[in-house]
């Protein structure tokens, strides 16, 4: 039994993730049970426990996007106790080791620091290496938000010409980003040359605010490569975004689990860097945006031999 669980189907990225899972399930002649928990930690854990108690745990594969770091451990422990195979993505507390569990095959995430830095540098390049920016942070207690912001800090350190005027949180949300940006625009007026955001939804919100204020020539960058953002990038409205390839994420977790469950993958013998790794991500700028407008998954990626092709290194 293949199960993919994400926050909700009401945002393009996670919807694409689940679709990727469905595609893979078809590939191996199964179906994926789509679970969403509406961003409620408690509900996510309860769902997992219920699924494991109701279904046949031993041949269950979970591909989970934990709501926050705090949710990873209970999910994994539940799976471990029930004997189900689980792959987690994005959120994991640093002090938890995947290799301590034999049913938690892998945790894969993306180097948020890296992506935060990449888009920052793309922005700075467009701004010509000097100017002022403001930053919109994500939900403050998520690793993603922290790492990405750290990446920005790094980039700033490397580019003395750029100053960070202000940073506020907009909770990864589009309408919050809109309101906050508006206020920041009045606060700093024309001083702002760039807006760094921790995800595309906020970037798009910021864009709207700029439109409403009739401001042009302000560089905006985000992360996640939601279709609208990619479109904006290729139209030149947005500077850059970073793709983690949602459909691939939705499939790969199931693939790894499926291989383990079917014995084609011996979890014990996996190298540490396959148990917890950074996956390959793609910086999208005007030049390569066109290729990402229609994301496509290659079935070959999910053969048990290739499931670890996108490993770019262990999580440090």
């Amino acid at each position, binding site marked *: 039994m293949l199960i993919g669980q994400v926050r909700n189907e009401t945002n393009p990225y996670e919807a694409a993730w689940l679709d990727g899972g469905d595609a893979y399930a078809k590939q191996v002649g199964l179906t994926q049970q789509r679970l969403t928990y509406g961003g409620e930690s408690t509900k996510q854990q309860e769902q997992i426990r219920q699924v494991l108690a109701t279904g046949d745990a031993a041949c269950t594969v979970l591909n989970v996007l934990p709501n926050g770091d705090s949710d990873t451990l209970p999910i994994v422990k539940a799976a471990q106790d029930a004997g189900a195979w689980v792959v987690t993505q994005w959120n994991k507390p640093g002090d938890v080791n995947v290799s301590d569990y034999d049913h938690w095959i892998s945790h894969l995430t993306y180097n948020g620091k890296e992506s935060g830095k990449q888009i920052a540098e793309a922005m700075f390049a467009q701004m010509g290496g000097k100017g002022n920016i403001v930053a919109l942070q994500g939900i403050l*207690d998520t690793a993603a938000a922290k790492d990405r912001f750290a990446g920005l800090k790094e980039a700033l350190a490397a580019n003395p010409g750029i100053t960070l005027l202000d940073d506020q949180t907009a909770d990864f949300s589009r309408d919050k980003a809109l309101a906050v940006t508006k206020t920041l625009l009045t606060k700093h007026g024309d001083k702002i040359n760039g807006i760094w955001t921790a995800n595309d939804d906020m970037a798009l919100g910021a864009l709207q605010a700029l439109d409403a204020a009739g401001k042009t020539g302000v560089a905006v960058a985000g992360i996640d490569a939601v279709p609208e953002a990619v479109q904006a990038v290729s139209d030149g409205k947005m500077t850059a975004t970073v793709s983690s390839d949602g459909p691939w994420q939705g499939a790969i977790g199931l693939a790894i689990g499926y291989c383990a469950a079917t014995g084609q993958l011996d979890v014990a013998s996996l190298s540490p860097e396959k148990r917890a790794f950074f996956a390959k991500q793609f910086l999208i700028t005007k030049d390569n945006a066109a290729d990402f407008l229609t994301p496509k998954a290659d079935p070959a990626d999910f053969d048990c031999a290739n499931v670890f092709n996108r490993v770019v290194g262990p999580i440090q």
Partner: protein
Amino acid sequence: MVHTDVTPLVKDEGASSERPARSPVFTRARLLSLMPIVAMVGLAAALTVANPRFIEPRSLVALVDSAAPLAMLAAGATVVVMCGGIDLSIATLASLTSVLLALWVPTLGIGAVPAVVGVAAVAGFIQGTIHVVFRIPSFIVTLGGMTVFSAAALVISGASTIPLVDTGATDWAFTRIGGQVPSSIVITLLAITLISLVMRLTPAGRWVSAIGYSEPAARLAGLPVAAVKLTAFTLSGACAGMAGVLLVARTFSGAPALADSLLLPAVAAIVVGGTAITGGHGGVWRTVAGALIVTMLRVGLSVVGVDSAYESILYGTIIIIAVALTMDRSKVSTVK
């Protein structure tokens, strides 16, 4: 002793015409008080039809286990609602508690549990005081409390998850007694039994409903209205704290928004249980039934394979039907 022999004055034809007969109200009330159970069983049956394995003990235990923190959270608030008020702060208070617990366990060990529950109780007490002394509607006071506690949790935790260094201090709340019964269920049931015993065996129960039904009458009968309300809010706070502890025990960490999403489910649990949102009529056991119903809707639906979009449509519809079934209209004058 006052002796007042008034018997000779009675005119019996007057009596006969005045004496109201026992109307069938009693039996209807009986039926109504069973309604939450009926709704619960009905829902369980429906889920079983959708997925036969739902009815297996393992699965049911998991369900009840999931319902435990919600029931705990709602139990205290039930008393507040019975007093005619409402407590919107319970969820964020539970989150705050989880953060404090995770922070204090390293230093206080198991002692951190009573400590944080105490803090939560105090928080409830403060809200109660503001409500009683300044005459501010509980809706507003606790709405304020909601935001304040959540802010406090964010600040104290530095807006980040705080892992429980050694889970030793909380394992008792997340094990299976005799390898079968999750301890969280037992703890919750103990707490709720305690509350309901106090409500039943001491005057507290009738004081609460007197205040809920008619506060002016209660006050003019010399009841300690303020004290009762304060106690209710304190209890509500303590229960929220305890719920926070249960959540930490199963999450192995505290987080500033851990329980925030449980507010509306908790209120739903109270009302679905048949406690009148207008106060007076209700009980904590009803809330347990309510919590189970709500949990079946929150978790059960998706697990038996309802598509997430239709899940929330079903949730909305069923919750309305459930309340329509369980509420005792004879106990509330006008529905607001």
